[in-house]
């Protein structure tokens, strides 16, 4: 089973009322160092079998047509998360 992650963020020029609300709450909890918060969405799409380039392409299309609204949002990431995790392990191993 493969898994594709799609991440969507409000466009930079669009005010993000949810992020603003979170930013307002953080200092009250002692997290004064965070000057701004923007809140986006993360989708995890599962497929049977491997995440092929075709699967990624289909996920990118779904991201552009359904999962995001291009008037107010940008798709910032469409990726095979298992492959990403493997890549992270490899790089950590290399560093060690």
């Amino acid at each position, binding site marked *: 089973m493969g898994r594709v992650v799609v991440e969507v963020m409000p466009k930079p020029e*669009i005010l993000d009322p949810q992020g603003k609300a979170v930013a307002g709450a953080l200092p009250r909890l002692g997290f004064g160092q965070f000057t701004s918060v923007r809140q986006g969405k993360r989708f995890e799409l599962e497929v049977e079998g491997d995440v092929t380039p075709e699967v990624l392409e289909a996920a990118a299309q779904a991201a552009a047509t359904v999962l995001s609204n291009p008037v107010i949002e940008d798709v910032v990431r469409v990726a095979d998360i298992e492959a990403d995790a493997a890549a992270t392990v490899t790089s950590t191993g290399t560093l060690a």
Partner: protein
Amino acid sequence: MRVGVVTFPGTLDDRDAARAVRLAGGEPVALWHADADLHDVDAVVLPGGFSYGDYLRAGAIARFAPVMAPVVDAAKGGLPVLGICNGFQILTEAHLLPGSMIKNETRTFVCREQELTVENVDTAWTRGFTPGQRITIPLKNQDGQFVADEHTLDELEGEGRVVFRYEGHDPNGSRRRIAGISNEAGNVVGLMPHPEHAVEAGYGPDSAQGPRRGTDGLTLFTSVLQTMVG
């Protein structure tokens, strides 16, 4: 004159919209989200509410309901379509109207009697008003802040497609105080405030005639009947 009123899962104001059609002199026809047939109606209302729980984005899932395919086709062919609140959000998601709605700038649910200016009386839904007429109808929403890029806003203004503008106070931070817009042809109109809640004396907003006697919203529904006859 048959005016279809669509019910999606989570629609709240379909019954009020149907009653508004009836009070205006039309015959309301219930249309179901899962039925890809408009049953020969002469106009369609997409009422307010929280279709599909507003999951994903307001109106985003309703746009793909079976009934929307014939609504989009017919709208492109000139059928009068009115989107109220969530219905307006659905029309933007379906690309029948430009822009989008995000959460209110106030970060709160807003519920008030709202004064508007009617700026375009050449649409299928506003020809019974006079240019610049001030009307008061209820406004109630969480995601009511109309946004679009500057180019789109200039185009809407230039083509006279801003149909309703918030008068005085901008309740949700909408760009240029826009409360409602139309497509180029003027048959598709969307607005955030609720005309269907101001159609019957005794149940509307306060007005010069007395408490709860405002019926300014009724003119949208009589306008479309006039459009269909004319």
